[in-house]
């Protein structure tokens, strides 16, 4: 967010308040906390019977014995008053005493930098180390981003025409969508928030399938039970979108726990927005994932706005990335509008998550160029020039195109041909979805339980009789 928001009125007040004290914590190398992982697997538990003995806590209890106090934490040497001889063996590792009363600072004084591979013009930044993406993957990523753009434009208009009840675009966040998806394996399980249809697109969900869901017709995998954009597909390892914010996060830790139990060579990837990080579920999820040591990647799309709430009113921390350390989670901040940076971060995160069986937090800085959904008009609460800046100067699709085209893998002709082709396919898919029959009445009753209980059987039977008795009153748009 530094690139734009450092110029914006709202962030300047936050930055003005920061205190330049370097904290002890800040000097710690990334990940040093995590050396205290236990071989007991599931997080330690404070033994109820630890007691104070001559200023030393001794921790006892079976589940604690595997922790090796004294080896766990490298104590910072910057504080002259620290005395190794005056330290406490506290559960979790040795803690030095100090005679100086220092409160740790609320801020490290310097914002965590943002990993980036491509500059604004799509040129690799000199000295950046990254895994090269081959032509096939790059073109597929790019064409996915374009497809998502077109899908958003047309389905958004479809909602405006009143043909579907709701829509929500991913405009401005195409790189996070497609690049994170490309970095994963199809076996990795995705628990989306709702602004990640590009992941499903990457995995092979067709335009027809998207359209069927939005129209809630009989071909919809959700049998017309969920409002538009709540896609889900078991065969694509993509969980059905859950509307309440952040519920997917602790659930993702649970799915990851299941992968861990089965010793699968896969991880879980779950997404959230910046607003979602204020939910209790976010904090619970990070803590649980850390304590249970499960392979899950938390990707926060920090797009600056939670409906009308800017991030300056969402939190006072340096964004989301800094939260990871507090929970003992390795974290990275990445330029979410740089597809190559997102790809590389997620790829590395995936390897670490699986090989080391640990969670990773990725904060991808981006911008929600569209409105939150079809239910709001974002120009009422944010400046037009801000939107315009991100739409043009920081456009992730345009930036990646420059790189792909710079490599000679894509041409202007490819572009116009591809765009008109996708537009045509999508228009056809929408027409077909609209024409398809709506879900039958039976769909009202199935899947509430594995097997219907007597009251539902009775309701269905009674409804059937009523329909038979009063066919003239039965609505024609509900197939029997």
């Amino acid at each position, binding site marked *: 967010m530094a690139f734009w928001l450092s110029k914006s009125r709202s962030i300047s007040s936050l930055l003005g308040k920061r205190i330049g004290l370097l904290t002890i914590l800040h000097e710690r190398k990334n990940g040093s906390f995590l050396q205290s992982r236990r071989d*007991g*697997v*599931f*997080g330690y*538990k404070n*033994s*109820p019977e630890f007691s104070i003995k001559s200023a030393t806590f001794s921790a006892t*209890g*079976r*589940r604690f014995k595997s922790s090796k106090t004294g080896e766990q934490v490298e104590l910072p040497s910057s504080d002259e008053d620290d005395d190794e001889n005056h330290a406490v063996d506290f559960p979790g590792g040795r803690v030095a005493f100090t005679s100086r009363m220092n409160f740790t600072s609320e801020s490290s004084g310097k914002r965590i930098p943002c990993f980036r591979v491509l500059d604004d013009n799509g040129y690799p930044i000199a000295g950046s180390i990254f895994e090269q993406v081959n032509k096939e993957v790059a073109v597929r990523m790019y064409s996915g981003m374009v497809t998502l753009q077109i899908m958003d434009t047309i389905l958004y208009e479809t909602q405006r025409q009143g043909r579907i009840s709701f829509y929500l675009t991913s405009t401005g966040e195409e790189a996070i969508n497609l690049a994170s998806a490309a970095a994963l394996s199809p076996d990795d*399980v995705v*628990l989306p928030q709702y602004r990640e249809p590009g992941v499903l697109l990457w995995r092979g969900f067709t335009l027809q399938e998207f359209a069927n869901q939005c129209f809630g017709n009989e071909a919809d*995998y*959700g*049998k017309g*039970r*969920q409002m538009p954009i*709540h896609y*889900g*597909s*078991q065969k694509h390892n993509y*969980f*059905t979108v*859950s*509307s*309440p914010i952040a*519920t997917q*996060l*602790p*659930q*993702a*830790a*649970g*799915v*990851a*726990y*299941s*992968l861990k*139990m*089965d010793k699968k060579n896969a991880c879980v990837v779950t997404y959230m927005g910046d607003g979602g990080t204020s939910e*209790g*579920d976010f*904090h*619970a*999820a990070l*803590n*649980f994932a850390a*304590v*249970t040591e499960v392979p899950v990647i938390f990707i926060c799309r920090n797009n600056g706005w939670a409906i009308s709430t800017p991030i300056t009113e969402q939190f006072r921390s340096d964004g989301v990335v800094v939260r990871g350390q507090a929970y003992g989670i390795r974290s990275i901040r990445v330029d979410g509008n740089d597809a190559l940076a997102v790809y590389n971060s997620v790829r590395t995160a995936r390897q670490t998550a699986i090989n080391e069986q640990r969670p990773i937090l990725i904060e991808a800085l981006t911008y929600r160029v569209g409105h939150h959904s079809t239910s709001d008009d974002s120009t009422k609460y944010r400046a037009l020039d801000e939107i315009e800046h991100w739409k043009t100067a920081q456009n992730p699709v345009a930036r990646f195109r420059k790189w792909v085209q710079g490599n000679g893998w894509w041409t202007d002709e490819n572009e116009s041909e591809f765009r008109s082709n996708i537009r045509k396919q999508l228009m056809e898919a929408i027409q077909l979805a609209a024409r398809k029959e709506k879900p039958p009445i039976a*769909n009202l009753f*199935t*899947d*509430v*339980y*594995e097997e219907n*209980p*007597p*009251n539902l059987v009775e309701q269905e039977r009674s409804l059937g009789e009523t329909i038979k008795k009063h066919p003239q009153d039965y609505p024609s748009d509900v197939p029997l």
Partner: protein
Amino acid sequence: MSAILRKIIAPGGIPAWGIRVIASRTYSSSAGGKEMTVRDALNSALDEEMSADPSVLLMGEEVGEYQGAYKVSKGLLDKYGPKRVIDTPITEAGFTGMAVGAAYHGLRPVVEFMTFNFSMQAIDHIINSAAKSNYMSSGQISVPIVFRGPNGAAAGVGAQHSQCYAAWYASCPGLKVLAPYNSEDARGLLKAAIRDPDPVVFLENELLYGESFPISAEALDSSFCLPIGKAKIEREGKDVTIVAFSKMVGYALKAAEILAKEGVSAEVINLRSIRPLDRATINTSVRKTNRLVTVEEGFPQHGVGAEICASIVEESFEYLDAPVERITGADVPMPYAANLERMAVPQVDDIVRAAKRTCYRSVPVAVNA
């Protein structure tokens, strides 16, 4: 949350796991005079199901090292290890959410709430995720999970630890809600809940954990299982039907004994399952006795009794010889002081008097105050 509870839990007097054999009892359902506490019944059910299916795991606060706030999970950590008996951080929404996720992906978690009062901090995962995911995903995501723990009023623990959630959870489609009374119920229903493909809310009662009940040889078999959605007629009668669940079944049985001495033959129905509700058994009984008393510890408004009344009015109205009597907890948060607390929950006498009223036997006017 645990700090308060630990004070509440009586530290001693918890019987060891096992079955005590006594000679003197002559319950009709007992074979060989065997008895078992509800705690041991739950513990053995968990143990057997974990042993039978490696995807079953238990998680919650204090379930492992501490063996459960009420020792229901005694011995399970030693037997199944920390991967399957998981002590979690103290975040109800965290471990409930995590368990729901694990259930989404093939595991069969049993979530222990230290009390169901604390499940309120996780209720979004129970209602919005566990109960609805199978429907919203059209059967792509099934959620085989059990939420269990003590429910309802204990003793002397005040408003935030004494509340019945039967009506709350039973109002939500997608959930099954069970409430065992005795050891046989506890074993048979918990095993059924763990094997069930749908999410089950399993409401135990703290004050029953230490109570011993006769248990049949059949119920001790590891294959034993009770059907979900079927009520049990605990005592047959012909004058009045008393419907209850959980601890109130015991009160209803005591009331029936007193009534019998006064010439009133009461039929006592133990609901066992709050959702699905066994309307057929209740209606059949009321059509026979023509009188109904419902008993629950929960609040009166929109309670389980209210639902039963509605069912009787809809299906058996013309069979009623008297207005239905609902015995419920008082419509106030639970007071702490023992004298007030006693006034706030149903007592055996309340049931006796209500039953008599339905039979038009004279009762003191003061009861209705």
